[in-house]
């Protein structure tokens, strides 16, 4: 198929906008598949006995690169393929286990256009289980300034993430 038109453009957005929440039932497969896809072989992400006895947690738990991939998916589900990630900062507070229903929420905090004309959206994201925030992420993602713009065409000095 040929590329779809941008799902959203900068002018559609306002500070305070909420992104569509993502709700997902985490299983052992979610944890193990994400750990192996990110080449994280550490046993607390696939061996329950190890996690309980050595880490003191109740079960295996999501690794950080897997959570990063969930946050990326959450953002680009919203922006569509024209959205281009610039920067993400993670703060891990507590673990996410099989059996948890995780809910990822995001709020537009900042809208800026830099001196190259690139349109940036600052989004604060939280991953919660039963109203308890397990991790958070501050992200900066570029979106098309208008229908003819494409952040992926920017390179080197035109890309200031």
């Amino acid at each position, binding site marked *: 198929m040929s*590329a779809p038109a941008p799902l959203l453009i900068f002018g559609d957005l306002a500070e305070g906008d909420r992104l569509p929440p993502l709700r997902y039932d985490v299983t052992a497969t979610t944890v193990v598949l994400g750990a192996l896809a990110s080449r994280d072989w550490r046993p607390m992400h696939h061996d329950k006995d190890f996690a309980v006895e050595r880490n003191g947690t109740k079960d295996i738990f999501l690794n950080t690169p897997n959570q990063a991939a969930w946050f990326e*998916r959450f953002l*680009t589900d919203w922006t569509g393929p024209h959205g281009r990630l610039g920067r993400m900062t993670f703060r891990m507070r507590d673990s996410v286990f099989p059996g948890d229903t995780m809910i990822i929420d995001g709020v537009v905090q900042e809208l800026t256009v830099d001196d190259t004309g690139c349109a940036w959206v600052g989004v604060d994201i939280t991953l919660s289980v039963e109203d308890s925030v397990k991790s958070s992420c501050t992200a900066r993602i570029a979106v098309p300034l208008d229908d003819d713009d494409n952040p992926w065409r920017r390179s080197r000095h035109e890309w200031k993430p």
Partner: protein
Amino acid sequence: MTRTIDVSDLVGVPMYEETGEFPVEQGYIWTMCAAVENGNPLFWDRAVAEEITGGPIAPPTMLSAWFRPHHWAPGSSEPRLPLKVHFDLKDRLGLPEAVITENTMVFHEPVRPGDVLRTRQILRSVTDEKTTRLGTGRFWVIDVEYENERGELVGVETYTGFGYRRDAPQKR
């Protein structure tokens, strides 16, 4: 007793420069997208990727995956550690425990299947001793830079670590 070990000779010096063990691989890209049910057509539809990103790319957040060592390789006797500078600092400063308190990823040129990436680790700063609820120790900031074989920067990960020793219980 408080003693200050000087590690300023390490600050700003590129260390552990290495080339990836394998080219960036489409199979891993699909496995990660499947793991998080990411249907972004950039990773699944070559024509869309061609039009928007000038060809297939890897999800930006997979950056660190391309450098996690194989769990085993011929001739290796023990598992190898990523972010070696973090563990070096623990050893050199005599701090038995360490955690990563914050992690930032910055994405530059897209990573593409077939790219062979290079990486290096650079210690940016180390604080004096501080006491937190975990114990007493020092915070440090490490950058991990990644570039492609064309010498273009593709990303930088910044880790803030806290190496510490648990404080002894108060004597009564």
